[in-house]
C-alpha cells in the first residue's frame, strides 16, 4: 500500500461512509422539512421500514432475480471460456465468429428480450438467456485476449522442452489468461444482474416469476414508491455483493503473483 496516494487504511472506509451518511441525512431532512409526500420521494427511514415490512415479499423476489443472475453468470462463464478456447485454436475460427459476438454485444439486450421471451415459452430459461447474452461478451473478449497474451519467451521455452498442446494450454495459456478472465468476470457479474433486471422488465406482468424488477414495475403502477425504493436498494446491494464476490475470487487466484492483487509491503 502506498500511503502517499491512498492514505491510511481507515480513510478508505471512513471517507465513503461519511459521504454516504451525509447524503442520507440531507435526503431525510429535505423530505421532512419540505414535507414531500411519500408517493414522490420517501425518506430513507421509510424505505428501511418498508424493506423490513415487505421483506417476505421482497426476499422472494430477490431470490428469483439472484437465481436468474447466477445461472446467467454460470452460463456466460462456461460458454464464454469455451468460445475463447475455440477462438485461440485458429485464426479462421476467430475471424469467422468474432463479428457475431460483437453484433450480439452491440445490439441492446432490451431490443432482443421481447423476441426471446416470445420464442422461449418458459419464463425462467427466457430470462436466463437474455441475461447470458448481456454478460457473455466481456468473458469472451477478455479470456480470448488473455489466452493470446502469452510471454513469447515462455512459449519458446515450452516448445524447447517439447510441451504438448494440452500442456501448453494448462500450464501456460490458462495461467496467463487468468488475470484477464477475472477482470472480465467482474464486469460480467454486473452485466448479468443488469441483463436479468432488464429482461424481467420486458417480461413485465406477463411473466409468472416475480423478480425484483417485477416488484419495481408493480410498485410504480401502484404508486407504492417506498417499496420501489426498497426493491431498488436490494438490486444495488445484490450488484455490490456480486462484484465483491468476483473480486474475492480474483484475489484468491492472483494474490501471490499478479500485480493487480499483490499488496506491496514496501
Amino acid at each position: 500500500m502506498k500511503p502517499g496516494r491512498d492514505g491510511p487504511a481507515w480513510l478508505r472506509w471512513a471517507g465513503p461512509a461519511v459521504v454516504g451518511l451525509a447524503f442520507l441525512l440531507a435526503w431525510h431532512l429535505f423530505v421532512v422539512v419540505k414535507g414531500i409526500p411519500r408517493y414522490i420521494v420517501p425518506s430513507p427511514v421509510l424505505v428501511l421500514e418498508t424493506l423490513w415490512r415487505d421483506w417476505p415479499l421482497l426476499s422472494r423476489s430477490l431470490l428469483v432475480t439472484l437465481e436468474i443472475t447466477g445461472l446467467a453468470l454460470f452460463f456466460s462463464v462456461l460458454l464464454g471460456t469455451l468460445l475463447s478456447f475455440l477462438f485461440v485454436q485458429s485464426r479462421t475460427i476467430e475471424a469467422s465468429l468474432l463479428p457475431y459476438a460483437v453484433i450480439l454485444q452491440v445490439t441492446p439486450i432490451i431490443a432482443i428480450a421481447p423476441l426471446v421471451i416470445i420464442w422461449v415459452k418458459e419464463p425462467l430459461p427466457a430470462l436466463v438467456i437474455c441475461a447470458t447474452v448481456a454478460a457473455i461478451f466481456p468473458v469472451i473478449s477478455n479470456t480470448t485476449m488473455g489466452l493470446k497474451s502469452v510471454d513469447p519467451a515462455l512459449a519458446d521455452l515450452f516448445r524447447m522442452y517439447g510441451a504438448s498442446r494440452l500442456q501448453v494450454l494448462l500450464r501456460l495459456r490458462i495461467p496467463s489468461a487468468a488475470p484477464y478472465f477475472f477482470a472480465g468476470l467482474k464486469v460480467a457479474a454486473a452485466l448479468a444482474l443488469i441483463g436479468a433486471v432488464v429482461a424481467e422488465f420486458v417480461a413485465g406482468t406477463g411473466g409468472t416469476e416475480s423478480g425484483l424488477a417485477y416488484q419495481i414495475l408493480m410498485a410504480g403502477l401502484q404508486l407504492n414508491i417506498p417499496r420501489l425504493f426498497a426493491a431498488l436498494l436490494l438490486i444495488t446491494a445484490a450488484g455490490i455483493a456480486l462484484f465483491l464476490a468476483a473480486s474475492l475470487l480474483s484475489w484468491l487466484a492472483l494474490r501471490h503473483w499478479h500485480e493487480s492483487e499483490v499488496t506491496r509491503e514496501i
Partner: protein
Amino acid sequence: MSNGPSNAGKAIAVHLHGADKVFPTGLRALAPIDLVLREGEIVTLLGPSGCGKSTLLRLVARLIEPSSGSVALWPGADDVAARRLAFVFQHPTLMPWGRVESNVRLPLDLARLPAGEASRRVAHALGLVGLRDFSRAYPRELSGGMQMRVSIARALVTEPQLLLMDEPFGALDEIARSRLDRDVAALAAHEKLTVLFVTHSIYEAAFLSTRVLVMSARPGRILKEVAIDAPQPRGDDFRGSDAFAHACAELSRHLAFAAEGALA
C-alpha cells in the same frame, strides 16, 4: 580453426557448416557460419547489438532452422538421443504464477518425470545455484540476480551437456553479473558442461571463455577468434591478472573494428 588448447582432442558438441539465416522479410541476419564447439569448451559470441549473435544461438537451439547449411549437435556421438541442451534467455522468463520450485521443475514435469526423481533433481539444481532456501518463494519476491539463478537452475535440472546462454546477465548490475559469471564458470567445470554464451560485454567474454568469437553485423559473421589461455574454472583473482588485461585489450580492439564495420 584453432581450439582451446585443452579441448583440442575432445569430441565435437556443436557443428555448424555454412549455416546462415535469411528472414522472410529478406533481412539477412547471418552470413554462412562455420563453427565447431568441442566438449567442455566455453565459447563466447561477442559483438555489437544486431550482429546476429542471438540468431546464431537460436539456430543451435533448433528454435529456428537455417536457411541453408547445416547444424549438427554431437555429430559423432552414438547416444545423441540421450543428450540434452538447455537454453538460458536474456530475461529470467519465469512463470510469475509458479513458486521457484515449480519453475525449476517445469522441464521435468513437461517430460513427465516421476515425482520423486523430479523433486530430487530440483533440490540439487537449486543447491547448485545457492537458492535452496528460496524454493517456496514467488519470482516477484526475488531480486533480478536471484531470478536469473532460478532460470539457470531450471536449465540445469534436465542435466544437460550443452548450455546455451543468450546475454543472460545483461540486465544486472556489475556486481551481480561478476558473481554469476564466476558461478557459471564453476558450474560448467563441475557439471562438465559445454557452454555457448552470447554477450556484448568484453569483460564477461574475457573472464568466461576458452575462446571468444568476435562478430560483426549485417550480415552477422565471425570476424575474429581469440583463444584465452588460462585454466578453468577461473576465480575472481583472474580479473586482476595480466592474462585478463591482455584479453580485454585484444577483444576491445577487435570489437571496435567490428563496430566500425557495422557503421560502414
